[in-house]
Every structure is written in structure tokens, then in C-alpha cells.
């Protein structure tokens, strides 16, 4: 027996590392695999990963939403999930991994008219699963189709690093004539850079996917972030100042969103493995356009991070697995777990972010007396998308916005209109159970009072405030 085991571990030069009798077809991190063994290994690896994710909740019985963009990783994930679900052995008393699987897709045609929606629908159709899709512009509609209020950023500071950064917003009622698409296009054209547009799209897609999961009764969302993507995200999010929420955003399993758990079962696969898996199993995938498709490496921070990881991985092939392992060892700060969600991204907002920046980047000579140079009312814009008969007092929202989203606001045009979920988060902050303390709590209460008339109460059938992420 011992002899057999030892022989099992030995490598046969020039042969597949698993079966040892077939000529290899692919090299994955210095290991050679034949086609059949590679496919088998990938399936086993995925199932092992699933078991690991269920370690804390082995008897979890819930539906899962597969977040499906149509790209290579989410297509591979779809195939693997379906395969796992159908692998229940009839001869023993076992149950499928999930009580049901739904495919959730965000239709980005509004931003990218060339998006291959038909192809994506066809790929998902091959699985025979329920396919739910929602347009990215639908972020400007709350569940139930009501339109309540939007947040208009009327002033985003004077300059980066002013003594008291001002992030002033006001609540406005949307003009009845404007369409969701117009709002969405206006939002993206207000953003200052491609990096910010990518960040905002990620935020919106995450919100919509979570909404889809809630609507379809799924307790788990499966995100198709490969190991390569995790490494890229780690570098990009760190570079965007998102260290506070980084452990949540790349975690294998995150409970941050309360009622919906977000899992990343593809993190054990590098991009090369996914490409070969799809090719050899005949899994189709689509080419999904992004803001930097076809652009040079300096197109945005995400694009640069992707190029950087790809180059580094060529010379140091252990880079991606190392970064993924490093991320597993990080954990969110206690303060992050009890922090309130940022108005814009829904990730924990660091209370000290603004003070930290102001102390280290001075942009006025009179900084030390704490004076503000210009008055907010001087720059109030008029937007055709908003109902003009509605005026409300200005809200100081700096403390409700995380460090990275403050940077986003710095570079945005005045008059930027944010979706309704921002209003919800603003209103939810003191009732969400993640209550703030001390003076911050008092400030948030003041904020809440200011927006009270715009908040839907439970009897109006509004969605649960505690779940606005």
C-alpha cells in the first residue's frame, strides 16, 4: 500500500503528472497535465473549493445566483456549478449543493451598444437554468418601479486636500420626462476619469446583482473572480485607496451584505487554466466590452494593474497564487465591520478618511484657521434631468463617503446625480443596526432628519433599509 502511494506521488519525466502514461498537453505552474487529467483536476478543485466555502455552514440550503457576465471565467464557473449540481449520487442519500441555481446578468448595452447580449443569452440558455437579466440603467429605479429621490452632488470640495473638504449634496425629485438611460449616461459623463467610470460601473453592477439575488430568493451570489482577477483587483483597489474594504472586496466569502453571502469559488484558478478548461470542454464565452477595451496600459488604474500582473506573472509565475494567499490572511478591521456603508459604494466608510487626507495635503495658506474659501451656494448647477420646483437644504455628506469615493467625487463635475440607492443608504444609516457612535451618530441623525421626507416608510412597501448595499 505504502509503495503504491509513494509511486503515486512520483513524477514520470515527460508524462502527465496525474496519470503518468499520457503525453502532457498543458503546463500549469511547472506541472504538466494531459487534457483529460486537466479537466478532471479542474472539476475536483472546484468541488473542493465549494466544500471549503461551506465549511462553516455545511447544511446550508439555499438558492445560488451565478453572476454571469458572459466572459471566460463566469462561463467556466457556470459549467462547473451545473456539473457540481448534477453530480448528486443516486445510490447514497445526498442532496445537491444548492436548492436551485439562477443565472443573473447585467445588460450593459446602454453603456456599450456593442455588448453581445444575444450571444450571452445563448450561452446561458445551454445550461437550461432560469436566466434573469436587468439593464444597468435600472439602477435609477427602485424595486417596485417607484421614483422617490436622487442625490445631486452640488459641490465636491474646493480642491483635493482642502482644509475642510466639502462634499455637499441635495435631494431632488427626478424630472418625470427623463429616462433611466439619460440619467445613467449623465452620471457616467460627470465622472472625471476612466478609472472612476470603471469604479462606478462596478458599484452599480454589484448593487444590481445583489438586488437580483434578493428578488429571486438566493442567499448566495457566486462571483466569477479568477485568481488572476483577484490579484489584479488587489493591486487596483490598493492603488485606489480602498485598503479599508479590500479584505471584504476580494474575500473568498463575505457576509458584509447581510442577507446575501458573496462567494468567489473561481479564485483557485488562474486565467490560463480557465482558457484551457473552456477550450477543452467546449464551453463558449463572449468577449465583453469594457471602458478600456483596446486601450493602452495607461488607460485606467484597473487596466494598468491588469497589465502589471500579467507582466509580473510571466517572469514570476507564483505571483498570482501568492497574492491570493496573502489576501486570505488579511482580515477587515473591527472598525470596518462596524462602520456604516459608504453612500456611493456601499463598502465600509472610514470615519477618519477626510481628516487623514486634510492633514497631509494642504491646499490653502489659511488652512490652519479651518476657513472655507467658497460658499456652496455659489456653484449650484441647474440640471435638466431634475425637477426644478424641488429645493431642499444642502447636506454635508463627507462622513458618509469612504476615502476612495471621496477621490471620485473630487474629480466629478458638479451636478452629478447619483442613483436612488445612495438616498436609501443615507436614510438607512441610523436604522441599519450598524449604528454609529458618539458625535457621528448625532450627525447622522441630523442627516436623517433632513432627508426624512424623501424616505419611504415600511408601510409604503419600500425595500428593507437594512439591506441597502
Amino acid at each position, binding site marked *: 500500500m505504502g509503495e503504491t502511494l509513494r509511486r503515486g506521488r512520483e513524477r514520470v519525466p515527460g508524462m502527465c503528472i496525474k496519470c503518468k502514461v499520457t503525453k502532457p498537453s498543458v503546463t500549469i505552474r511547472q506541472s504538466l497535465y494531459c487534457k483529460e487529467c486537466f479537466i478532471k483536476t479542474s472539476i475536483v478543485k472546484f468541488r473542493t473549493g465549494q466544500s471549503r466555502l461551506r465549511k462553516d455552514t455545511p447544511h446550508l440550503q439555499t438558492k445560488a445566483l451565478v453572476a454571469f457576465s458572459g466572459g471566460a471565467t463566469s462561463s467556466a464557473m457556470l459549467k462547473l456549478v451545473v456539473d457540481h449540481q448534477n453530480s448528486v449520487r443516486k445510490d447514497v442519500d445526498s442532496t445537491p449543493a444548492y436548492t436551485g441555481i439562477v443565472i443573473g446578468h447585467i445588460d450593459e448595452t446602454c453603456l456599450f451598444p456593442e455588448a453581445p447580449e444575444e450571444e450571452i443569452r445563448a450561452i446561458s440558455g445551454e445550461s437550461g437554468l432560469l436566466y434573469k437579466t436587468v439593464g444597468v440603467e435600472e439602477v435609477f429605479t427602485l424595486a417596485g418601479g417607484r421614483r422617490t429621490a436622487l442625490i445631486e452632488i452640488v459641490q465636491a470640495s474646493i*480642491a*483635493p*486636500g482642502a482644509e475642510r473638504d466639502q462634499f455637499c449634496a441635495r435631494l431632488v425629485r427626478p424630472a418625470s420626462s427623463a429616462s433611466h438611460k439619460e440619467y445613467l449616461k449623465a452620471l457616467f459623463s460627470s465622472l472625471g*476619469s476612466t*478609472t472612476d467610470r470603471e469604479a462606478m460601473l462596478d458599484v452599480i453592477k454589484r448593487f444590481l446583482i445583489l438586488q437580483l439575488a434578493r428578488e429571486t430568493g438566493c442567499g448566495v451570489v457566486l462571483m466569477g473572480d479568477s485568481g488572476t482577477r483577484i490579484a489584479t483587483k*488587489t*493591486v487596483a*483597489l*490598493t*492603488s*485606489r*485607496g*480602498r*485598503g*479599508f474594504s*479590500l*479584505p471584504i472586496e476580494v474575500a473568498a466569502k463575505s457576509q458584509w451584505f447581510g442577507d446575501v453571502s458573496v462567494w468567489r469559488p473561481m479564485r483557485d484558478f488562474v486565467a490560463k487554466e480557465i482558457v484551457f478548461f473552456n477550450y477543452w470542454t467546449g464551453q463558449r464565452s463572449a468577449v465583453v466590452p469594457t471602458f478600456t477595451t483596446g486601450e493602452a*496600459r*495607461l488607460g*485606467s*488604474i484597473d487596466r*494598468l494593474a491588469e497589465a*502589471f500582473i500579467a*507582466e*509580473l506573472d510571466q*517572469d*514570476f509565475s507564483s*505571483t498570482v497564487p*501568492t*497574492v491570493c*494567499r*496573502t489576501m486570505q*490572511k*488579511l*482580515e*477587515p*478591521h473591527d472598525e*470596518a465591520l462596524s462602520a456604516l456603508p459608504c453612500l456611493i459604494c456601499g463598502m465600509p466608510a*472610514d470615519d477618519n*478618511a477626510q481628516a*487623514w*487626507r486634510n*492633514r*497631509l*495635503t*494642504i*491646499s*490653502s*495658506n489659511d*488652512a490652519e484657521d479651518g476657513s472655507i474659501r467658497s460658499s456652496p451656494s455659489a456653484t449650484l448647477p441647474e440640471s435638466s434631468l431634475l425637477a426644478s420646483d424641488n429645493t431642499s437644504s444642502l447636506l454635508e455628506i463627507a462622513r458618509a463617503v469612504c*476615502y*476612495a469615493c471621496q*477621490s471620485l467625487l473630487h474629480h466629478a463635475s458638479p451636478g452629478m446625480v447619483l442613483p436612488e440607492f445612495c438616498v436609501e443608504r443615507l436614510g438607512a444609516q441610523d436604522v441599519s443596526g450598524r449604528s454609529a457612535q458618539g458625535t457621528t451618530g448625532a450627525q447622522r441623525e441630523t442627516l436623517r432628519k433632513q432627508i426624512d421626507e424623501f424616505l419611504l416608510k415600511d408601510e409604503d412597501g419600500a425595500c428593507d433599509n437594512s439591506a441597502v448595499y
Partner: protein
Amino acid sequence: MPRQCDICQRARAIIRRPKTGQRICKECFFHVFETEVHHTIVDGRLFSPGDRVGIGASGGKDSTVLAYVMKTLNERYSYGLELFLLSVDEGIAGYRDDSLETVKRNKEQYGLPLMIVSYEQLYGWSMDSIVEAVGRKNNCTFCGVFRRQALDRGALMLDLDHIVTGHNADDVAETILMNLLRGDIPRLGRCTEITTAGDGYMGRSKPFKYAYEKEIVMYAYLKRLDYFSTECTYSPNAYRGYARQFLKDLESVRPSAIIDIIHSGEAIKVSEEVQAQKPSSCERCGYISSNAVCKACALLEGLERGIPKLGISRSAKHFERQAVEPVHFERLREKAHEMRRRRMCGDSNPCTTTSCDDSCHGTTCACTTDDDGAGGCH
């Protein structure tokens, strides 16, 4: 038409500030740069009045600007510090000998006492001789390990309370990225700290932690400071080269990214189970070490035995023979205590109160050296 300064609204703007994107005039740039460093010092509680602070001076842009700014702020805000220039001579011909000439000029320009400690004096090896023995690969390991310890040795010879180094925001951001990519979790937790314990005897800090490299260069240029700008003649680190290039690219995409990375690094929390083990002392030289024998002693042993690569790739505990014996840190600390005691009693010490290029060599001033090279004065 010339553009006005975004800050004072009066003078003509001459630079676009990388950190904020503002167009500002020369005087406003000096003001904000110096005030930000002052904030870093005050918020980090780096010093106490009466502290003897050594400025790690290489003659390069960072340390030259650091010396100038420290002197300026010490006078402007009455920190009450006694400042010293402390240089390490690694023994690299055509590089360090030229840069040390710059440091010597800085000593005159700023009126600060200077001490130079050399690898040859401390360890019996110069970098040129080390490169001759080990080749061009991996020699940066020797230089880095020895430099860190040499600074602490020099600081003890001068009985300093604190050492400040010219590490800037770019260096810190690069280190955060490197540690993330290498998976060096304990260092990831430590690298953003503004003050580190040094050898456990004195603090070591980075007042330029939030100052952009570009702004330091601008400051040196606009103040017409005298600094030395040549890369080290020995090979740069390939892996760090990737991180550096990425950072430069990142800065061109979003100039604030450097400070954003530092914000991220400070916010990242390392799980307690992977926190670094508690350091102890090297059983040979008494320097802070997480192993029984510190890295410098291990490398020295390897050099002496003619197998320097062992010192890099294997644990020090495999070595049995001690080939070189640098002065024990306990002895240096005793000397420092003695110097402090004498100072308290009003017994002036020429080595630490006058400017002296070769203090503890007994060549150009009244100070003399112990036979064992431990420094201090008789």
C-alpha cells in the same frame, strides 16, 4: 498670460503640484511642503524636546532635503532638537566617495555635526570587496543589512535618541506593493509604521513618509540645495524594478495614487496569527534579531568562510564558527550611557558637540578613538 497661484492668488504659479494637481507659486510650495512634514512630525509624535536626532545622510536628494527641512522646522517650531548628520560609507568607489563629499559640504552649509561610519571600519569589508567576493548578484542584501546596523552603531557612538531617514512616500508605497506581491505579511503590517523600534534602544522614523519624491526633487531644485544624484553602481533589484515602474505608470494615470496606496496600507489589517514573532537579541553582537544570530553576523561569517551565499539562503543557526567579531552592542550602549552621564554633568564631549568629519578616528579633531573602535571620546 501667466497663471496665478491657486493658494495665495497673488504670485505667479510656477509649478503644478503632483500631490494635489494645484498650480502654485514657489513660496506657497515651500510653505505647504514644510507644513505637511511638520504635521507628520507632530501627529506621529516623533520627538521630545532635547532629543539628540541623527539625520541619515547619504548626500542624495532625499536626505539633503531632510537635513535642510529638519533644521528649518526645528528653528521655526522650536522643537528643541539637537541635530546631527550621520553617514554610512559603504565603500563603493565612484559612488559613495563622491556623495560623501556632498555630505561634507552640507555639514558646512547647515552647520550640523557629521559622523561617518564605514563598513570597512565596522566589519572589515567594503562593498567593493564584498562584490569582488560574491559577484554582482545579491550584493544588495549585504549592503541593506549592513547599512541598517551601521546606522544604529553610529547613532550609539553619538548617543542619539532618534534617527530620521529620508524614505519618501514613493518608497513607502513601493514597499507596500512589494510586500503584497511577495506575500510578506509581517512586513506588510510593519512597513507603514512611521516609527520603528530600531535596535530597541532608539527610535527610527520617516518624516517624509507622505512627501512625494517628485516634490522633494522640486524642493531641492527650487531651494538650489547641493545634492548628489547618481544611481548606485551595483545592480538594482529586478523585482523592485517592476514595482517601481508600476508606481511611475500609476502616478501618470492618477497622481494621488501614491498617497492612496499609503492610505490603503495603513488600513490593511494583518490577522493576529500571522503577526511577527517577538524579536530577541543576536547572541554574537547583541543586535536586535529574530534568530539566534542576526543577519549581519551570518553574512559576515559567510564572507569570512568564503561561502557568502550560505548567509543569504540558509538560516544562521547552521553556522558554528564565528569569524568576525564586530563590537558588541552592549558595549556601545554602555559607552552611550557614559557619554550621557558626562553630558548631564556638564563635561563637554568634543566628538559630539563640534563638527568632526572623522569622529572616533582621532585624525582631524580633538576626539580620540577606543582601540576597539567603539567610538566615544576620552
